[in-house]
């Protein structure tokens, strides 16, 4: 009963301390939000669904074949025809030169003519739109050829995308979950600076002089940190969903477990850093290096698969990789709590957090003997 009262008062104190610490709000809430907004605005704007290329169609002497072809071209979804009516080749060349359009397609001049010409700007010869238009046009010509000889195609290509979950992972979702992982990880990595501060001011020693239960004090601190991280998750998710149109399919039991594992793991690492840092500056230096290194190799902003091969093994042992993946699985793919990869991730995170905590505790124990003159 007394323990509960102590916990309540300690938690209240922690709550007030956090609310009054402006730094915590800046780095924990404001900074991740700004970072996410910047990244999403720069990289999240163009998604594959919206890809289209602007094309001008030249049909100088309209004939039966060209009219049919023009009609069919207009129906291809990624080809956006700039003019309603066909234009002259000369005019089209000007448009291409001035990059008003990505390409111009010159349709056959007569029903007998067999060439379809593609005009692109030399500068854009290797660009994605050129490749796409050329590819589409090539396919289109083949079909036309087949039709011309009256043969049905023997083979046809079928294309289907698959994803392990119920929805496709878009970059916005990828980045959103990555940012949530990053801000919770940083909360843990940077948050333990309080411990260094408390030790430096002699507050830990002061508390040890009272009959206060340090375990309860640590617990109230941890609960406060989890609460703070929950605010981060909710806020970032709301912005991701409502401002940038992210799609979330959340599996709550999985999310809860991923969240707890991640938060504990990074708080453990923060605890380890706090155990050997004598000043706030030293702590922040180490935490910054750790966070910076992890940020770029753990697939927060870009998938791990896009990184050089030699770097990928590094990503595969870092806890942040598994935390971000776990959050993606539980928030975007609605992955069940029974999934094996999820538990594999838990083990890695737990290993990091656990080992860091044990080493940290040992260092603290040694320090408590040495630090007293």
């Amino acid at each position, binding site marked *: 009963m007394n323990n509960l009262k102590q916990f309540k*008062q300690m938690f209240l104190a922690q709550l007030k301390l956090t609310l009054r610490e402006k730094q915590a709000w800046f780095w924990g809430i404001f900074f991740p939000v700004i970072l996410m907004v910047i990244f999403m605005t720069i990289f999240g704007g163009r998604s594959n669904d919206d890809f289209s290329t602007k094309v001008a169609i030249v049909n100088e002497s309209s004939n039966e074949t060209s009219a049919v072809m023009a009609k069919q071209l207009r129906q291809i979804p990624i080809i956006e025809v700039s003019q309603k009516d066909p234009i002259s080749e000369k005019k089209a060349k000007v448009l291409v030169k001035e990059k008003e359009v990505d390409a111009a397609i010159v349709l056959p001049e007569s029903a007998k003519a067999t060439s379809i010409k593609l005009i692109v700007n030399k500068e854009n010869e290797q660009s994605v739109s050129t490749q796409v238009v050329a590819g589409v046009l090539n396919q289109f010509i083949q079909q036309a050829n087949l039709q011309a000889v009256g043969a049905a195609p023997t083979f046809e290509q079928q294309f289907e995308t698959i994803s392990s979950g119920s929805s496709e992972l878009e970059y916005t979702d990828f980045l959103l979950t990555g940012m949530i992982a990053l801000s919770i990880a940083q909360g843990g990595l940077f948050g333990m600076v309080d411990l260094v501060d408390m030790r430096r001011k002699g507050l830990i020693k002061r508390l040890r002089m009272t009959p206060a239960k340090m375990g309860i004090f640590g617990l109230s601190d941890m609960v406060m940190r989890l609460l703070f991280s929950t605010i981060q998750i909710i806020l970032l998710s709301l912005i991701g969903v409502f401002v940038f149109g992210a799609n979330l399919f959340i599996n709550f039991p999985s999310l809860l477990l991923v969240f707890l594992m991640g938060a504990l793991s990074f708080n453990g690492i923060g605890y380890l850093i706090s155990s050997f840092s004598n000043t706030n500056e030293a702590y922040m230096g180490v935490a910054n290096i750790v966070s910076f290194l992890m940020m770029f190799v753990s697939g927060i902003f870009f998938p791990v698969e896009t990184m050089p091969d030699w770097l990928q093994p590094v990503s595969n042992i870092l806890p942040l990789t598994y935390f971000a993946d776990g959050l993606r699985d539980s928030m975007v793919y609605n992955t069940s709590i029974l999934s094996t990869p999820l538990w594999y991730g838990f083990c890695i995170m737990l290993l990091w957090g656990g080992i860091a905590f044990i080493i940290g505790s040992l260092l603290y124990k040694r320090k408590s003997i040495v630090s*007293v003159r």
Partner: protein
Amino acid sequence: MNILEVRNLKKSFGSIQAVKDISFSVEEGEIFTIIGPNGAGKTTTLEMIEGLVTPDHGEIQFGELNWNKHTITIKKKIGVQPQSSAMFDLLSPEENLNLFATFYDKARSTEEILKLVNLTEHRVNQVKKLSGGQRQRLAIGLAMISDPDIVFLDEPTTGLDPQARRNVWEIILELKKLGKTTILTTHYMEEAEKLSDRVCIVDQGLVVTLDSPSALIEKLTNEREVRLSFLDGEKAAQDAELFASALDSVTRTEREGTALKLWTIKPEDLLFDLFKFTKDKEYQVEQVSIREMSLEDVFIAYTGKEWRD
């Protein structure tokens, strides 16, 4: 009755022997002061008594209680104000006191403590906005929140201005009135002399001497310095010096113009004889003073060190 008994404490950190052999006992209700030069082992001794540091050797008894068996009970009986007035800077004095109160089963009301340390006006300001003296008073308040029998104050007035120091002294004397036992360390001789019932001088990890301030001064020497100055010119002072040096009770004389300094073990007799002499000669004397020896003299005599604040 002894409320605290310390026997043969020893503590080394690596090759440094911080406390070599310290023993003393503290009586209930007294203000017991430990003074000593920097690095004498004061803080280590206090931290061993407070249970923060385990001694390499020696015993610490709080009446029937000791740290090995009665950790929690002792923690409830003592109140500590550490040298670094450690508290939560982002909480107000009231919130700090309320939080510390929950650590104990019985606690005095926050209201009462705020009044005792005169912080009622600043109860809602965040601690980081308080002045040095106010912080120090709050630290004493935090030590008092559990209504402890023994209060440890580690340099409670270091770095405070004279007015703030006086405020802290009042609080310490108030604690004595409440029947509390206070164990104090200080950098200020004046403070030790004014507040303590007994003073323990520590140097190089050993107890050098232990007694009441007045007894310590008494022990040091019975000699007093008497100063006089004469209105009738150097001749009068010279005559008086000659007369005084002939007396048995005078050990040494020193004259500078019309000012005369005499050292004696019987200042009353000397003054009686001297005034008889000046009255006969009709010399006029002004500014007569007997300088008391201070605790500082005792300190210097025992430790051989100049006192530095």
